[in-house]
């Protein structure tokens, strides 16, 4: 037998071709109007959002490919759609009830719901999925802990199509946690077929394959490059999406993304550069939805364990020295919502983040610094991550200049992101800017996540026993009035102690073709293709 060169090449290719490339079906020539093309600066790196290192783009994709038991409703704010975490609707669960004591959640699955392979969704599948989120080594475990979901014993099949979740304490966010990107519902029969002894939860297989039943099926996926989705025509767990086909493509160069959107070759992008957005808006070929990221915040953090920032007076002095309005304009061109310049002494509501009562007052800053015994100032470094340079660099320059006026010498330090994260996690940064987002923007959750415990997200390494106590109490508080009081007290303590300075919530600028409608700002800060339509 002789092998020709061509046969050899074919053989090699067959060996080398990934299973995904082979599985992709030849796309039907569908009209451009029914296809949505999203372009992103980052890239989808896994089809399983619970994999460590999953990118935000992967979370976005998984929302469209997998269903969760429940989902957040959306509401109109200033003419834009924004998610509403206070109203929860069923997704894969048709309805759900919470017992009066808040200790039991009963979920009734939607009759007739099927997985992508056509098999019916069962309560056993749901139980297996929930077990995976508390049992496998994945990002879901620590997220589910914030909803007091920690053990497979808490999930019980209570009849055909009925699943019960029991809690030890009435956790405020137990149900909300079932709506986050990690809480995917998995076709357990399919996943188990691809599990191995080393990998009982099929985590390896699910990185490049899906076992879901969501509104879209993955037609082809190349990690770091692009994903093509086809609408799941059998989908019953929500309103049938408009677009039959969705292409999500990584285009790293921001200027190229702007060109593509303006030429109409791509339909939507949410990560263009501020400068390009202003130009595109003025030329009028595109539509821009600018929506404040209501569950996020940009901040300046002090290391409250490191002198001189362990002294609240020093922190307050710096807070009184900064030119907030100039920083807001220089850094964001004013595209966002201010979290400074509040005019209150006691918080008006339990909502958070809110504008904090800080403003520039150099005389006060000098007085506070003198009170701290540092009338002559001191030297420090101010750090930020390279990926945020476009907004953080102007901010850092203004901080340096303003603090120079009260005698504090600031050296600016721009660090690669991985290095910044490491230093942050090791609590070695003295003074820096970064930002945070809470998927579940309940006030106590912000405080629990960002102001308690010895962990990376405690940006200021702040230890305040009263905050820890309040955050813990608020989490299980059933009386709304008591909960409000606890939240207000936490906000007051934060305003007084200033472990970090809240600056602003940057806008999400979704730039899209004029005919695209329905864009919704989602808590995971990605595009939900199911919301969109072409007029």
């Amino acid at each position, binding site marked *: 037998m002789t092998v020709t060169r*061509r046969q050899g*090449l*074919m053989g*090699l*290719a067959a060996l*080398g*071709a*990934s299973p995904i*490339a082979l599985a992709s079906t*030849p*796309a039907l020539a569908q009209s451009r109007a029914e*296809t949505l093309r999203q*372009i992103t600066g980052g*890239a989808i*790196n*896994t089809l399983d959002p619970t994999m*460590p*290192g*999953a990118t935000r783009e992967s979370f976005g994709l998984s929302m469209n490919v997998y269903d969760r038991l429940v989902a957040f409703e959306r509401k109109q704010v200033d003419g834009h759609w924004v998610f509403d975490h206070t109203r929860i609707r069923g997704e894969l669960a048709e309805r759900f009830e919470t017992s009066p004591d808040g200790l039991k959640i009963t979920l009734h699955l939607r009759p007739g719901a099927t997985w992508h392979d056509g098999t019916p969704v069962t309560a056993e599948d749901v139980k297996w999925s929930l077990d995976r989120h508390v049992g496998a*080594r994945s*990002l879901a*475990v*620590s*997220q589910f802990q914030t909803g007091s979901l920690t053990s497979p014993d808490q999930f019980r099949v209570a009849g055909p199509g009925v699943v019960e979740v029991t809690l030890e304490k009435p956790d405020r966010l137990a149900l909300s946690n079932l709506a986050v990107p*990690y809480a995917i519902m998995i076709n357990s029969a399919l996943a188990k077929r691809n599990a191995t002894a080393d990998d009982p939860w099929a985590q390896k297989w699910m*990185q*490049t394959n899906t076992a879901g039943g969501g509104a879209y099926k993955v037609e*082809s996926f190349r*990690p*770091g*490059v*692009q994903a093509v989705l086809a609408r799941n025509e059998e989908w019953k767990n929500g309103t049938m999406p408009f677009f039959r086909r969705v*292409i999500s*493509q*990584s*285009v*790293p*160069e921001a*200027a*190229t993304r702007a*060109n*593509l959107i303006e*030429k109409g070759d*791509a339909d939507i992008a949410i990560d263009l550069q501020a400068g390009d957005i202003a130009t595109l808006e003025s030329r009028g070929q595109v539509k821009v939805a600018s929506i404040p990221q209501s569950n996020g915040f940009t901040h300046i953090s002090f290391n409250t364990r490191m002198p001189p920032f362990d002294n609240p007076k020093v922190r307050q002095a710096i807070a009184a020295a900064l030119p907030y309005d100039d920083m807001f304009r220089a850094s964001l061109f004013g595209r966002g919502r201010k979290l400074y310049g509040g005019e209150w002494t006691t918080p008006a509501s339990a909502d958070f983040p809110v504008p904090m009562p800080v403003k520039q007052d150099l005389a006060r800053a000098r007085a506070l610094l003198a009170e701290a015994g540092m009338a002559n100032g001191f030297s420090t470094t101010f750090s930020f991550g390279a990926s945020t340079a476009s907004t953080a660099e102007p901010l850092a320059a203004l901080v340096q200049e303003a603090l120079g006026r009260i005698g504090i010498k600031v050296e600016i330090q721009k660090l*690669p*992101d*991985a*290095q910044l*994260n*490491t*230093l*942050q*996690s090791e609590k070695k940064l003295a003074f820096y800017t970064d930002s945070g*987002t*809470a*998927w579940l923007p309940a006030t106590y959750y912000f405080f629990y996540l960002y102001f308690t415990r*010895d*962990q*990376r*997200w405690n940006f200021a390494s702040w230890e305040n026993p009263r905050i820890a106590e309040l955050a813990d109490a608020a989490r299980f508080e059933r009386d709304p009035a008591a909960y409000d009081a606890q939240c207000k007290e936490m906000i007051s303590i934060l305003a007084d102690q200033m472990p970090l300075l809240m600056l602003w919530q940057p806008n999400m600028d979704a730039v899209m073709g004029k005919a695209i409608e329905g864009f919704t700002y989602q808590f995971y800060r990605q595009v939900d293709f199911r919301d969109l339509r072409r007029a």
Partner: protein
Amino acid sequence: MRALASAGRRVGGRLLAAIPAVLGVLVLTFLVMRVLPGDPAVYFAGGPSAGQAQIDQLRAEMGLDKPVPVQLMYYFRDIAGGDLGRSLTTGQPVLTDIRQRLPASLELTFSALLIALVAALPLGILAALRPGSAVDHLVRFLCTMGVCMPTFVTGLLLIYVFYYLLGWSPDPTGRIDIFAGTPPDITGFLLIDFALTGDWAGWRAAASQLLLPAVTMALFVLAPLARMTRASMLAVLGGEFIRTARAMGLPGWRIILVYALRNAVLPVLTIAGIVFSTMLGANVLVEKVFSWPGVASYALDALQASDYAPVQGFVLLMATIFVVVNLVIDLLYGLADPRAGAE
């Protein structure tokens, strides 16, 4: 037959001699990656509520909790078994990633080198024939421009003119029209694959996607090739055998193309080899600007995330390619100038 055997011996000897160099590069990359500040475990455990436990767990999974010499030994053991590790950025084995992405980079680099050579050789010859003339100055100007403009500026400029303003070029993202179906996957080189399947419409589409990035890269490497051609042609044209050939009344084109060029092409070949290897790694900006799914942008992304395995895999790949390219150049020397093969 003897020539073949000697060539074989030379190839074998070369490959053996390259092993210590490649090993050195491997160890060096390995150590540098670990010395760099930035802990991949922290970076990748970056979920909204990932704590120290997740970080430690990930570190153990990646083997980073062991001492560096032990890690290095494991690394060599894995490489010997053909396992380059797993990328955290893409979630795939590095070998799979590289296999999917290398053809894209190679296709782009080969096309760019071809365009550059096709442009540089005539330009260099023309400049050498009339040194100091207007043609010579024009060539010098072109080369200077090509070198001075960073590739991403050239790339963005070409996109702006040919895509945004004129609309002649397809949208500058990736290797094929995004709305078209999946291309055939035979060799990974789209131009070859489309030709093999006889899909000439697809071939044209892939070629038009390739044109702008390839031209961008070609412009950048035009200068070394054209200048080297000019310099070595000048030297050869001043030689006595050329004067003799002219005196014998041989036709001008024959003198230049056969006698002069063949002698002048050796240094050009050397430079082309170096240019090729450099392009493959240095075209990261072009790959970024044109969303080209190649190996260089892959390595850069990994480097930014302190993702060790892909960076190490990339460096290993580059070292290997460098060795192979140098070998090929050496063999080509023998073809161009039999004296070089004799040793």
